[in-house]
């Protein structure tokens, strides 16, 4: 079985290097085909591992060679395919294979075609390193690797210039790329500190050793570990207050948004918390804070999606919001539920984004949903796929989201965190509303695009074919809940929900009712001409539309002062004070030397006088220091 682990892991790397070899050459279709094929190989290997694990329950481990050895630290390149990582592997490779195939069509006219596939496969490789490593350092390699690939891919259209912020609240791909990288680095520092704490208390970064020893430690130490690891998770999973990069990351090509900024990379934080459950289950207090933050983000992000007019940003906020749901489950100890929602979300969110990609293609990269409408007539399949994805996202039976999201609400209610439950419940309504607001504005109603002179068309058949499996999974994945639970709880702790019977049914009913009314409101309102423009004047609308003014706030509070401070540090401190002091001292020496030149003037009579003065001084010194009799 070891060889399947290696094939699954390294096939994407091979693909990336292959495409990379053509990176500076004109488009070659072969790069897209080879990388997709290699990813499919990786997917098949992951599936084989999954079935092997299902059958034998034997965890597969592979060690390559030692990476860093010093003191008592030994970090090997070690990989593990256990119940959690194999689920992640299958999800990641499945979605990325489909996104690769889709991208062959999406990027067909882009001059960076080869480069794109090289980056995209490199991302998959990094992500697999992240989920397959058997130690925290290996996880960190993947962690930073996906950060790098995300930087490369957000900034893929690097040649675009910076736009001021208030035009279509966006900047430029390269700006967004740097923002994402630097913001993630802030979190990574937290993560590194977490690793240091683990190392100095346990002496290893290997999961097996760490998790076996963690309960021997002082609770304060475990708390610190949990907090700092979670800071790392907050960056990658874009939790408040490190969330702004995710919406700006929509500057990248849409397949990237589908794969990286929705389905896979941003779930790395959730994965980390799930993976470190032996740490977090020791510190339920911290778990509660994680859940509370998650619930907050779930509502906070959803509220921004309510009014946004940018097709991709709406979906990005929805991703943020769903990540919040996952953290609620993980924080409350229902690790398998978090992982389940992570998986189903990957399917329908990728589907939604790919659909958005089709719409953008049809509309010449227009993103404003108020310039669309009535696209159902020309893009029937895309519309159907996006409606399926939206139904799944809203949590309507029998779509996948119903099962996973409902479970999270049940967990929140069951653990008696009623406030969290209420927030998630409201969030569910908002989710349904903004999802169908988008569907209505894009696919139905008045054909506003004609005014702007667009000529939309349906996407290539193979792009739609690539979306079809995701659509299928968005419908049926929920029915695998029980086998999924049974499988992953071989590793993860079980979570028993105590509510049964009428209460459980009532809860499901309430949630479904909420979702349905959200959908109903959106469908009704937007089929009757939408909300009145007076809304746009209200404070609340402006607040939400400007993302609570947080990007502006960060700009004014951190970025600009940092720039100013740097300038001061350089021009005032470094040049005016530190360096000037050095030059001043040097100047004194120089000047005293210059002044002292009179004693060496070469004029005999003057020099004799100086000699006499010198003699006198010496005589005085002799008298002063002569020993007293």
């Amino acid at each position: 079985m070891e060889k399947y682990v290696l094939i699954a892991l390294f096939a994407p790397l091979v693909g990336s290097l292959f495409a990379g070899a053509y990176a500076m050459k004109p488009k070659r279709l072969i790069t897209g085909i080879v990388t997709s094929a290699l990813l499919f190989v990786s997917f098949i290997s992951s599936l084989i591992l999954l079935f092997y694990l299902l059958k034998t329950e034997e965890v597969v481990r592979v060690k390559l060679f030692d990476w860093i050895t010093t003191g008592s630290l030994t970090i090997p390149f070690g990989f593990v395919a256990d119940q959690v990582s194999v689920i992640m592997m299958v999800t990641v490779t499945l979605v990325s294979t489909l996104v690769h195939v889709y991208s062959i069509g999406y990027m067909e006219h882009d001059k960076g075609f080869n480069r794109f596939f090289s980056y995209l496969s490199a991302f998959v490789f990094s992500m697999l390193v992240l989920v397959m490593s058997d130690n925290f350092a290996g996880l960190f390699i993947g962690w930073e690797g996906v950060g790098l690939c995300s930087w490369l891919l957000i900034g893929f259209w690097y040649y675009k210039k910076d736009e001021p912020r208030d035009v279509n609240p966006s900047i430029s791909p390269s700006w967004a790329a740097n923002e994402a990288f630097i913001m993630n680095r802030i979190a990574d520092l937290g993560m590194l500190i977490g690793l240091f704490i683990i190392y100095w208390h346990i002496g290893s970064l290997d999961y097996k050793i760490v998790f076996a020893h963690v309960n021997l430690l002082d609770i304060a130490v475990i708390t610190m570990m949990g907090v700092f690891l979670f800071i790392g998770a907050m960056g990658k999973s874009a939790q408040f207050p490190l969330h702004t990069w995710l919406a700006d990351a929509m500057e990248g090509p849409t397949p990237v948004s589908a794969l990286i900024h929705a389905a896979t990379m941003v779930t790395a934080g959730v994965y980390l918390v799930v993976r470190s459950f032996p740490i977090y289950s020791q510190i339920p207090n911290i778990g509660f804070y994680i859940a509370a933050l998650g619930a907050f983000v779930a509502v906070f992000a959803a509220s921004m999606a309510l009014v946004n007019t940018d097709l991709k940003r709406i979906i990005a906020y929805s991703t943020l919001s769903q990540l919040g749901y996952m953290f609620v489950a993980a924080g409350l100890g229902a690790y398998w539920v978090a992982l389940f929602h992570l998986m189903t979300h990957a399917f329908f969110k990728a589907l939604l984004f790919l659909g958005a990609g089709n719409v953008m293609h049809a509309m010449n990269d227009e993103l404003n949903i108020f310039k669309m409408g009535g696209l159902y007539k020309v893009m029937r399949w895309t519309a159907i796929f996006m409606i399926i994805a939206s139904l799944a996202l809203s949590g309507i039976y029998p779509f996948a989201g119903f099962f996973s999201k409902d479970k999270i609400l049940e967990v929140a209610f069951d653990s008696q965190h009623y406030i969290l439950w209420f927030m998630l419940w409201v969030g569910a309504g908002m989710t349904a509303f903004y999802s169908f607001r988008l569907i209505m504005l894009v696919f139905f109603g008045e054909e506003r695009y004609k005014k702007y002179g667009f000529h939309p068309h349906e996407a290539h058949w193979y792009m739609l074919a690539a979306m079809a499996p995701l659509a299928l999974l968005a419908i049926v994945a929920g029915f695998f809940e029980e086998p999924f639970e049974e499988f992953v709880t071989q590793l993860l702790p079980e979570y028993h929900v105590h509510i049964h019977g009428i209460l459980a049914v009532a809860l499901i009913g309430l949630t479904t009712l909420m979702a349905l009314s959200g959908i109903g409101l959106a469908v009704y309102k937007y089929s009757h001409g939408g909300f009145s423009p007076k809304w746009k004047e209200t404070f609340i609308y402006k607040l939400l539309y400007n993302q609570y003014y947080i990007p502006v706030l960060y700009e004014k509070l951190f970025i600009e002062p940092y720039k100013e401070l740097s300038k001061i540090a350089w021009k005032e401190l470094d040049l005016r004070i530190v360096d000037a002091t050095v030059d001043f001292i040097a100047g004194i020496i120089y000047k005293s030397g210059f002044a002292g030149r009179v004693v060496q003037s070469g004029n005999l009579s003057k020099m004799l006088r100086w000699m006499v003065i010198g003699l006198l001084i010496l005589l005085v010194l002799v008298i002063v220091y002569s020993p007293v009799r």
Partner: protein
Amino acid sequence: MNHILSLLVFFPALAAVLGFVVNKENIRVYGIAVAAIEFVLSLFLWFMFDPSNGGFQFVEFIPLIPDYGINYQLGVDGISLFIIILSTFITLIGLISLTIEKNIKNMIISLLFLEMTMVGVFVALDAIVFYVFWELSLVPMLYIIGYWGSELRIYAAIKFFLYTFFGSLIMLVGMLFLAYLYYLATGTISFSIPDWHRLILPYDYQFWLFLAFFMGMAIKVPMFPFHTWLPYAHGQAPTIGSVILAAVLLKMGTYGFVRFSLPIFPDASIALIGPIAILAVIMVIYTAMVAYAQEDMKQVIAYSSISHMGVIVLGTFAMNIEGIAGSIFLMISHGIVSGALFMLVGNIYDRKHTKKLSEFGGLAAVMPKYALIFGIMTMASVGLPLTIGFVGEFLSLMGFYKISPALTFLGGMSIILGAAYMLRLYKLTFFGPITKEENKKLPDLNWKELTSLIPLVIVVIWLGINPNPVLKPINKSVENLLTLMEKKAITPKAKEILSHNKVELEAK
């Protein structure tokens, strides 16, 4: 092979002297050939080196002035071995990439002479021999900056010379006094560093001598607030000067800490961890900020060098294997990466004769190979895992965490601020639309530039994935160093820190 170290030291010097009779057309090939032979010799040294032995190897001993305990004594251990290889490697790469036309012969002779002094510093086991090479290294550098530099070259060269010379003189006084103390303790004078390692000094003497040595090292590193000579030197020096200055000469300072300060003054070193770490943290954060504000590509790299040296100092004063081994590894990796970055800046300077950031933008479209290599080095500089830059930074910070979590956190800001200034540099140079018409026709890297850069890229990735061949010999020698320090420690604080510098599993 008993004299391989002498050969390593004097072969380039001898070749430099012979270089005077080589004619101008062939001098470049001659220089590269000599540097290549020297590099192969240093690789041979690594091959012959016994990694399981943490002590000094290939020791040579010729009495010079036996009455005063001054002897020609050379040797290498795991700590110096790789810095020697770094010196010969960077000299070779630098010579390959050399684009200077003006008086090329003198340049190559200076470089070969400089190579002798660099190797000499790292193999010397006698303080006087060490000091001689240490000071001699200033001379060719003075000449390189002062002759081939840009407008302010004389000011920069003299500032560099006098400033570092000033610190070194204080260090020399410290050395003389230390030899005298040795005389008081044993009855014979000795300048032998291994002898000094065995000497146990009272705390007061340690403290003042530590400060004397510190002056010499700190200015060389350069530590805040003694760093202001460096931006001038880098700003005015020709590319090759900056490459060698950043890659090797700065490492003399941090090497000095490991070779002299820690083992000879263990108690003072530990007592002063606090102030030094604070200086190092200021260095990391403050110069990273200054780097962010720069308008000139080269100055960004220059200030980033200071910032990274701060992390090295932190690692050195971590007093555990993880930190010290990490800091030595970081010396090597920073040498490679900063050398490469200065060369890359040199490449663009050769094309445009400017280093101003405002002159560039969108270069990724016209110079993709250049953008790729610059990107790899940028990522190595910000310490991305699987590049050479990560290992040392990670271990240095990890080591220092044992001493002070709070200061480690502040020192760790380097990973955030480092990304900020490097990505700003990268964005302004390579991203966005091409703003200047003349930049549209810039040629990409030629084969000569590629031959000098590709080996660096290979090293950056190879040692990033597999640092152990380098790390293991370092570990062994650092282990010896720490054992020695623990044996010598006299103050309770030093004993406490040195006996608890390993992982201890504490039960609840």
